[in-house]
C-alpha cells in the first residue's frame, strides 16, 4: 500500500513536471527574465548602435530630470489619468445605478454601451480622428450648428488633451459600467426592501446601502482604471501623430516616450529607465490598494 502511494506520488510529480514545467519555463523566458533585464538595462547605456553596453549607475535616471519631453509626457499622462478616472468612474456608476431601475431593458443598454469596449483602440482612434478633423469633422460641424467657433482639436496643444480624454472615456465607460452592474446585482434585494419599509427614500438608500456595499468593487475599478489610463499609448499615437495631409500636435505620453527613446533613437538603456518609472508607479498603486483593502478587513 505504501509502495502504491509512493508510486502515485512519483507519478504525480512527473505529471506536474510535464505540464507545469514548460509553463513555468515560458513564464521565466517571456515575463520574469525580461522584467529583471529591463531593470538591469536601466543602469547601462545599452543601445542597438553600441555593441558593448557599460554600467552607468543612475545616469539614465538623472537625465530624466532634465528631459523636457519626458517631463511633459509624465505631466500629460498624470493629467489624463486623473481626469479620465474621475469622469469615467462617475459616469459608469451613474449609468449603472439608473440602469438597475429599467428592468429587462438594461440588457439592451448594456450591450450598446459595451460596443466601444469591444472596438480595439486603433479603429476607435481612427474613427475619432476623423470626427475631430478641423475642416470636415462632425464635431466642428456640430459646433457650427450651435454657432460656436470651430476648434483645431488635434492640432493645438491645449485641445489635443481634451480630445484624447474624450476618446478614452468613450472607449472605457461601458467596461466599468458592466463591472458596477455585477456589483450592484450582488447586493441582496432584502436590504432595499427593509430600507423601504423603514421609510428610507432612494437617495438615502443609495447613500447608506449602495455606496458602502459597492465600495470594494469601486476601489478595485479605480485601481484598474488608474493603471489602464497610465498606460495610455495607442490613442495618442494614432490620433495625434502627424499624417500626410493632416498634421497634428504630438501628444506626448509616458509609454510613447519609452517607445520613442527605445525604438526611434535606440537608446534602450534610457528607455528602460523610463519603463522603470512606469513600473514604480504601477507598484505604488497596487501597494496602496493592498493597504486600503487591508484596512477594510481590520
Amino acid at each position, binding site marked *: 500500500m505504501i509502495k502504491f502511494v509512493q508510486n502515485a506520488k512519483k*507519478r*504525480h510529480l512527473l*505529471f*506536474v513536471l510535464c*505540464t*507545469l514545467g*514548460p*509553463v*513555468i519555463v*515560458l*513564464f521565466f523566458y*517571456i515575463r*520574469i527574465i*525580461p*522584467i529583471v533585464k*529591463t531593470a538591469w538595462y536601466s543602469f547601462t547605456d545599452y543601445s542597438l548602435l553600441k555593441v558593448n553596453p557599460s554600467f552607468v549607475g543612475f545616469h539614465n535616471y538623472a537625465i530624466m530630470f532634465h528631459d523636457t519631453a519626458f517631463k511633459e509626457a509624465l505631466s500629460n499622462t498624470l493629467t489624463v489619468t486623473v481626469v479620465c478616472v474621475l469622469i469615467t468612474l462617475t459616469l459608469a456608476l451613474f449609468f449603472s445605478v*439608473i440602469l*438597475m431601475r*429599467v*428592468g429587462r*431593458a438594461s440588457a439592451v*443598454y*448594456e450591450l*450598446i*454601451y459595451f*460596443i*466601444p469596449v*469591444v472596438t*480595439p*483602440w*486603433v*479603429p476607435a482612434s481612427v*474613427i*475619432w480622428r476623423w*470626427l475631430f478633423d478641423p475642416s470636415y469633422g462632425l464635431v466642428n*460641424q456640430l459646433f457650427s450648428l450651435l454657432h460656436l467657433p470651430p476648434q483645431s482639436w488635434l492640432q493645438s496643444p491645449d485641445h489635443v488633451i481634451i480630445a484624447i480624454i474624450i476618446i478614452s472615456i468613450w472607449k472605457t*465607460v*461601458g467596461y466599468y459600467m*458592466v*463591472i458596477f452592474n455585477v456589483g450592484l446585482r450582488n447586493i441582496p434585494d432584502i436590504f432595499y*426592501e427593509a430600507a423601504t419599509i423603514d421609510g428610507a427614500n432612494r437617495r438615502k438608500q443609495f447613500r447608506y446601502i449602495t455606496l458602502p456595499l459597492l465600495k470594494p468593487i469601486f476601489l*478595485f475599478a479605480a485601481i484598474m482604471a488608474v493603471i489602464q489610463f497610465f498606460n495610455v*499609448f495607442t490613442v495618442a499615437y494614432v490620433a495625434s*501623430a502627424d*499624417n*500626410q*495631409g493632416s498634421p497634428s500636435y504630438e501628444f506626448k505620453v509616458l509609454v510613447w516616450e*519609452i*517607445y520613442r527613446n*527605445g*525604438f526611434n533613437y535606440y537608446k*534602450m538603456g534610457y*528607455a528602460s529607465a523610463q*519603463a*522603470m518609472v*512606469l*513600473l514604480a508607479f*504601477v*507598484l505604488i498603486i*497596487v501597494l496602496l490598494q493592498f493597504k486600503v483593502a487591508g484596512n477594510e478587513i481590520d
Partner: protein
Amino acid sequence: MKSIRSKPFDGSIIFIHIILCLGALCILSPILWMLLTSFKTGEEILRVPPTIFPQYATLNNYHTVLTIQQFPRFIFNSFLISSLSTLSVLVTSIFGGYAFAKFDFPLKKFFFTLILATAIVPFEVYMISVYITIGKLNLYNSYLGIVFPILIMSFGVFFIRQHCISIPNELLDAARVDGAAEFWILKSVVVPLSKTPLMALGIFAFSEAWAFFIWPLIIVNTREFYTIELGLMIFQKMYYIEHGPIAAGAIISIVPMLTIFFILREQFIQGVTLSGMKS
C-alpha cells in the same frame, strides 16, 4: 432589485430611459458615422455641411481596401496570430491552473506567487527587453515573433486554478483507482468540466491578441506580417486625405470583434470583466 422593479409605474422611468438613450446615442454615433462614411463617395465625404445618409451608396471604398491595399492579408495575419495566442493561452492555463489547484510539489507557492506577480507588470515595462530577445532569436517580421509575448497569460493560469479548485477530489481519485493515467484524467475529466471558464478565457485571449498594437508596431516592418491594427494605422498615416477607404478599413477591423461579441455576448462580457477581478 425586484422591489424597485415591481413598484407601480412611475414617471421617472421615462426620464431614465431618455438619459440612457442619449448615452447610447453618444456611444453609437461615432461608429455609425464611420459606417455611413464608408459607403459615401470621396466627393460626398468632403461636403460641407455633411450629408448623413450616403446619397449614392457605393462599395468602392471596400473594394479599394480589400483589393488594392492587401487588407485580406492583414485580416488573415490577425486571425492567425490571435488563434495561435488563444490556443497557447488555453493550453498553458489549463496545464498550469490544474497543476496548481490539485497537486503538491516543491516550491509551489513560490512559483504561483511569481506568476501572479507578473500579472501586474504592464507589457510596456519590459517590451524593450523582449525586443532584444526577439532580435537575438532573429524573429523580427515573423508570426512567432509577434505571438511570442502573448503565448501565456498569468491571469489565465490564476483563473483556471480558481475553477479547478472547485472540482471534487473524489472524482479525480475515482478515475485514478480505475487505473486512469493522469493525462487521461486531465483530458477526459478536467477539461470537459472546465468548458465554461475555458470559453470565457479563450474569448478574452482572442480579443486581447486582436487588439494588440504596440508590439506588432515595434517588431514588424514588412507588409507581409502586418496585423489589421497595424495595417489600418499605417494606411491612415499614408492616405489620410482619402477618407473613404480608411473608414471602410476601420469598419472591417471592427466587424470580427463585434460578430464574436454579439454571438457570444454572455461569455464575452464574463471573460472581459472577470479578467479585471484577478486581484
